[in-house]
């Protein structure tokens, strides 16, 4: 009997509770929906770009990196406009933005994107035309490649980034002096001038008891030296083949420390001595060594030969990664140019085409990207991020970074960024690059011959993108 009563009470409670919850949330949403109530008038599909009626002076930002929280706070302090920043995890950011904007959501005023998402966003018309606000007046102030990545296929400015992310090679100055007699970035850069030279450098370092890289994927950031797709035709440039050969030779010639990028030994190599693993360990074929666990790792690799790693290839945000992991080797690092120009990542800020507060939003975009005072603040606040505003880079070009032996990094990054050619960036880069990476892995481990692996790569591209012509 008791339980029956309990159940009825529970159920009655359930119903009232759910009603309360609904009522409650309705009550609290009514004010947030109020903004859309007046103007939405059931015409959500009409994206109404022309209705610039200001509905309350505030700004809603949907972003995928925490940086904009700080930018937003600063904007609020300086202008008095309330800023609401919603952070969504990068993996689901495109889903969220697509769903909401396709359904006509007017809430976000500022939306952002990483280069790999941008083209899809441009095509879907999510970003408003910044040229309408006179964006082109500022064209000279931003590093060229960032400006170009922010343009859609028709050359209309859609987004601007506050960062530059050019790639560089981070190398150990002390090892350079010992082996090559110099630690000058210019001279070391020559050792990385092209893929055959890198192979020579690797052999020289091995002869001296060092390893050139921790993993064999370090040159990946530079490998985008040719476009994957040109006029709808798959383009496998000679440099791609050279890069493939380099990876295979580095691996088969025992020239790296056989770590995987972002694994424990890879991080450890930043701080000094690491054991030289074997190819089997890197492939997880030999699981006696757990590369994700330092203690077990140290135990399992006891008695293995150790070495020190000479270089890492990372975009400019690698400055921060190294800073956190170099420990005792702080000050012994340098940065030089790689075999080509490349970049990876970066947050691009634009205005949602559904926004009803486009003018305020434009003020915010200008504040983040074109305001020298903000750029100064960001360089200091982020402790070494590189900004895209030319005048700020110019101003900070004499800033010496102690982790990197007092090297003046901003000048260097500006130079690298100027060399980037955005016409080589396509929307297929991620998928095709991954497929190419798989082919390289298959060849280096001897699983497939080079011809077989490349043939399979073509098959994969043909089946993934039927609209790309593949000329074998």
């Amino acid at each position, binding site marked *: 009997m008791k339980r029956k009563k309990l159940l009825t009470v529970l*159920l009655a409670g*359930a119903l009232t509770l759910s009603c309360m919850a609904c009522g409650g*949330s309705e009550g609290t949403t009514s004010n947030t929906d109020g903004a859309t109530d007046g103007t939405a008038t059931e015409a959500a599909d009409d994206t109404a770009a022309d209705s610039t009626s200001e509905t309350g002076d505030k700004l809603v930002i949907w972003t995928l990196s*925490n940086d904009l929280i700080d930018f937003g706070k600063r904007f609020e302090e300086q202008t008095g406009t309330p800023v609401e920043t*919603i952070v969504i995890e*990068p993996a*689901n950011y495109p889903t969220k933005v697509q769903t909401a904007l*396709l359904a006509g*959501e007017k809430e976000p005023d500022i939306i952002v994107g990483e280069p790999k998402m941008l083209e899809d966003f441009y095509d879907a018309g999510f970003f408003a035309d910044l040229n309408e606000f006179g964006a082109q007046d500022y064209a000279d102030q931003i590093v060229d490649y960032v400006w170009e990545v922010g343009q859609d296929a028709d050359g209309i400015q859609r987004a601007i980034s506050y960062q530059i992310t050019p790639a560089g090679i981070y190398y150990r100055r002390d090892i350079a002096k010992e082996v090559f007699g110099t630690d000058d970035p210019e001279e070391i850069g020559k050792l990385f001038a092209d893929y055959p030279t890198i192979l020579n450098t690797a052999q020289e370092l091995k002869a001296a008891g060092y390893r050139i890289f921790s993993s064999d994927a370090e040159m990946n950031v530079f490998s985008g030296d040719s476009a994957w797709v040109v006029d709808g035709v798959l383009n496998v440039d000679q440099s791609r083949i050279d890069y493939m050969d380099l990876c295979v030779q580095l691996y088969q010639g025992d020239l790296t420390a056989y770590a995987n990028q972002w694994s424990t030994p890879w991080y450890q190599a930043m701080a000094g001595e690491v054991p030289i693993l074997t190819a089997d360990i890197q492939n997880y074929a030999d699981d006696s060594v757990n590369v994700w666990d*330092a203690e077990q790792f140290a135990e399992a690799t006891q008695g293995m030969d150790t070495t020190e790693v000479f270089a890492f290839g990372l975009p400019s945000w690698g400055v921060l990664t190294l800073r956190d992991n170099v420990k005792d080797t702080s000050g012994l690092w340098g940065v030089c140019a790689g075999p080509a120009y490349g970049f990876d990542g970066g947050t691009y800020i634009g205005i949602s085409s559904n926004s009803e507060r486009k003018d305020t939003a434009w003020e915010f975009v200008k504040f983040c990207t074109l305001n020298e005072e903000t750029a100064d603040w960001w360089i200091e606040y982020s402790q070494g991020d590189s900004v895209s505003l030319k005048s700020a880079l110019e101003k900070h070009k004499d800033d010496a970074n102690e982790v990197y032996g007092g090297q003046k990094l901003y000048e260097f990054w500006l130079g690298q960024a100027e060399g980037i050619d955005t016409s080589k960036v396509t929307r297929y880069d991620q998928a095709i690059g991954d497929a190419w990476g798989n082919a390289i892995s298959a060849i280096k481990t001897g699983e497939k011959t080079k011809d077989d692996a490349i043939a399979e790569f073509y098959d994969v591209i043909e089946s993934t993108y039927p609209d790309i012509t593949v000329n074998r």
Partner: protein
Amino acid sequence: MGTGFKIKKAILYILLILLGAVCLLPFLLMLVNATRSGVEIVNSFTLIPSTHLKENWDTVFKFFNLFQGMWNSIKVAVPATLLTAYFSALTAYGLAMYEFKGNKFIFTMILVFMMIPGQLGLIGFYNLCTRLHLVNSYIPLIIPAIAAPGTVFFLRQYVLSVLPPSLVEAARIDGASELYSFHRIVLPIMSPGIATMAIMAFIGNWNNYLLPMIILNKNEKFTLPVMMATLKASTDIQSNQGAIYLAVAISVIPILLVFCFCSKYIISSISAGSVKE
């Protein structure tokens, strides 16, 4: 009672202890990692707690108020679970005990709907919510819970196996209305099955990520999984690793509580037969 029996027992215990350890280790690791800094987590693996609990706590709360998220999740998960449980039981009972035209057809349709992934209609769902002004509210997360084909399917089979039709007939003869006999007789008998499905539904609602992520656009309305995902959006993921573990560790607590409560309930219900009532 020879030594053979003792050895057998010893082996059994050792195996069970091993199994227990295997099950508990991930939990323990999560708790330990919640006290360690990101760099430590990336570099090594240990069961010795570190000293960074306070830092991780501060990191989490710098990003959001975890308890606010928990309260939001409760506001969604509890009503949704209760609705799922009650209405699924009602539907299952109807499908199992009444003979009417289209019964089979409805049941087949329910089976078919079980196989359609809910993510397919996201854009349409969002569109619907904008027009009904339900974006940013919990209603679109709670009300659809009424229709839970999987739960209905399970409970229908369950009713067929535990409820003798004569019981309901007896109630009818005594003059009970249909709804009254459902509430007073059928629900208590079904309660073990309902409790099982309620645990599943609660865990599902508690961990639901995609829909809240799409529907909610306000930081203060985010449910726990959505809040925790924003920790991963940091520019430097490494430094947030410990904070993520801490957040997950805290978010698991309600599930554990519900599980303890419900599993006790299941066991006690199974031992009580319908005839005794």
